[in-house]
Each structure stands twice: as structure tokens, then as C-alpha cells.
């Protein structure tokens, strides 16, 4: 159902016209932020007592 709604809403658009496209957009954003914040936080944590 969700997929059908997403497809209808995007009819004629130039974006990636599938629900999987939207999922991948946010999945990418989530993974980027996780890796980025994780690496920064780890670097700080590992060195904060020096």
C-alpha cells in the first residue's frame, strides 16, 4: 500500500520514482551520519584521557 501511494505521489516526477528510492535516500543519510558521528565520537573517546 505504501509503495502504491509513493508511486502515485511521484507520478511524472524526475526523481527516483519508486518507494525503494526514498528508502535508499534516507538509508544512505542514516549510514553516513552513523559512520561520521561514530568515528568522530570514537576518536574523541579513545584519546580524551591523554
Amino acid at each position, binding site marked *: 500500500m505504501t509503495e502504491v501511494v509513493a508511486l502515485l*505521489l511521484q507520478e511524472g516526477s524526475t*526523481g527516483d520514482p519508486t518507494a525503494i528510492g526514498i528508502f535508499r535516500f534516507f538509508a*544512505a*543519510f542514516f*549510514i*553516513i551520519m552513523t559512520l561520521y558521528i561514530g*568515528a568522530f565520537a570514537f*576518536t574523541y573517546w579513545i584519546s580524551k584521557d591523554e
Partner: protein
Amino acid sequence: MPIGDLQIPIIGKNVVIAVLVQTHILFATFIIGAVLVAATSEYLGMVTKQPNYERFARSLARFVVLLFASGAALAITFVLALVTLFPVFFSYLQNIFFWVFLVEAFMFLGQIIIVYAWYNVWDKLAYRKSLHVVFGFVAGFFGLMAMTMIDAVASFMLTPPEVDLASSEAVARSFLNQTMVPLNMHRFVGNFSYVGFLVAGWAGLRYLRATREDDREYYDWMGHWGLIWGFGFLIIQPVIGYGYLKGIRETSPAAFNTIMLGDKAWVFNFLALWLTIMTLASTAYFVHKLRFAVKPVEFLRKLSVGALGFMALFTVLNVIPANTSFIPQIGLVFLEGENTQIPLGSMYPWKYIGLIGMMLVGFFVITLYLRATATGFHWGRASRWSQLALIVCAVTVVLTMVTMGYTRETARRVDNNPAYLIYNCITLEQEITPSTCPVEGLEGSSE
């Protein structure tokens, strides 16, 4: 030689590349900018004898050394993923840019060697400070050169020039394609701005958690120093960005239309929103900080309050969308979408007025602030909300980086019919389109 066609389940191979590159860029930009900011701070510490600069430079250099491996590992993983997931495309790219990639690799190596040496001999060269500062700047130079090499490749992918790859001018015309210089300028300035805001945000966080008076003073100063870099370089960006977009419009008009006027125009609405948040938060911080000038500057402060008002006015002009088709990809389309124009939302003249006004007010307010800085501030008295403003700037600058990265890459998709890896030349399915490609000989010699 068999060439595989690997697919990544669930997220797809495009997301794999996007994640690796975007995360790498967030680290790489930090490292390039931080080395140069730290070297400049060390130099200022040497000249002014103010201990804050030295402490800051050394801490930042140490963090860069620790973080370097994360950025480098992502770069290597990205190349591996590109070779594996897009082997045909990477092969074509190597044919054009082998020497550029090779130079980049050696610049990267030079940067690693000098950055580690720079940090390692900090005490050993304590009495030869000038030489030590040079180490920092040389490391920064290597980083900038590596960035320049990869900018040539990235800009080529969006704006490939008319060139015969068999001709003697192939290297120069490919390297110096239409958007290479503006992209490089955009990223050069962006390095400083990004690092500045991150430093300011980090300082804000540490200031709020500090329990000792000397720490509060130091982190208050650090927030101020970071914001000078962050905001000072940010207000140059619109004019450089304009030059970059002009290059895209002239060489790849359909890509320009997609990101500026088409269904992906929302990326620039987001950019305007991020700019609004950063400029207003920074200006409000400056207004607040002027209260703590050692030599009272009440008149300057009143002027800066006026500047904050004008800044709000100009930045709001930038945020207003052109029509009610906000984000068509997720159905955020109201009324008649593209046919319903919003007053004050058009690019000309309103967004030009907004952007130019924002820059002029930005220059004005930072000039006032630097004028007050000359006489110094009482450190450690900043309010809680001013530090929160710094943290907001740091979060927003990361969102800006991600938005801009997505924008440049999605511009090549145009209407997805087909989407391109090299604009008009190689599709997302790694097929060459010689009829539209301005580059001759991309498919290689027939001999």
C-alpha cells in the same frame, strides 16, 4: 577478461558509493581545513605570544592525526567499491585521468608523511617555531593539491568538455574543464568554513560542560575563533557558488535546470535554509559577544543589532520557494504545484537581492566584530544560548555538506532517462552514449 555485474541487496550499489564518498568527504574536508587552520593558529601563537593559539593548534593537530586513518580507510574502500561495482566506468575514467589519480595518490602520501612529522616534532622544534609552522602549511598544501586532483575528475563528470582524447590538448582540456576552477575555489573556501563551524560547535559543547574557570575562558575563546573562520569564509561562498552554477548552466544546462528549476530544486531550498540558520545564529552570537568587549563598543553593538535585522530580512528572501511543488519525490506538492507561483519566491530579482544582501550584511557584521576583537573580550562569560547557537551552526554545516554533495551528484541524473555517471557520456548502467558525448575517443582506440 570477464567483468562482473555485482548488485548490493536492499540498499543498492549507488547507496554504497554515496555513503563511502560522502562520509570520506566529511573527513577529508575536515582534515584539509583543520591542518591549515591549525598551522595558521600556530603561526599566530608564535607572533602574538597568546597561549590559546598554541594550545588550540596542538589539540587540533593531534585530533587530525588520530582521525586521518578513518578518512583514509574510507577513501580506499571507496576506490575498491568503485572498481568492483562500476568496473567499466572506472576503466574509462582511468583512461582519461590516470596521471591525475597518480598525482593525487602521491599528494595524499605527502600529506600523511608531513602531517605525522608535523605533530611528532612539535616539542623538538619548539625553538625553531618558524620551521615547524612551515611543516603545517606544507601538509595543508599537499592536502589542497590532492583535493584539486579529485576536483578535476568530479567536475569532468558533470561538465565534460569538447575534446578529442587523442589530441595533444586532451589532458589540459579534460583537467581544466568548465567547472573545475569554480568547484575547486568553492571547496577551498568551504574547507575553512566547515572546520570553523565544527570547531565552534565543539567549543560550545565543551564550554557548557566546563567546570573550571580557565577551561570556560579557553572554550569561549575557541568558539569565537572557530566562528570567525566559519562565518568569515561562509559569506564568500554565495558568489563562488554562483560562478560554479554559471559554469554548469553553460556546459550542462539540463543538469542546471534539474537542480535549480526542476524537480530537484528543493535541494537549493534546503541550502538556503541551512544558510539562513548559520548566518542568523552567527550574527546573533556576534551581537551577544560584543557586550563583553574589553573596551565598550556600544555603538558597534547597536549597529550589529541592525545588521541582525537586515540579515533576517535577506535570508528569509532566500528561503521562499518559487512555487508550491516543494518536494515532488515524496508528494509535497500543493495547489497546482509548479503552476502556482509564490510571491517573492522567484530567483530574479528576489534571491539575487537576498544573496547579495546577505553577503554585504555578513561582511559588515564581521568587520564590526573584528574591530572589537582587536581590543579583546572578557572570556568565560558567554551565555548558554550563544553556545547553543555555535552547536546549531556545527550541525547545520554538516547538513550543508551532505546537501551539496547530493546536489552535485544528482544533477547528472536529470530526468533519469538515462541517468549519467559522466554527463551525456556514460550512463548509470555504464553504457557509452557517443551521440551526445562531447568527448571524442572515450571508448578507446579501435586499433
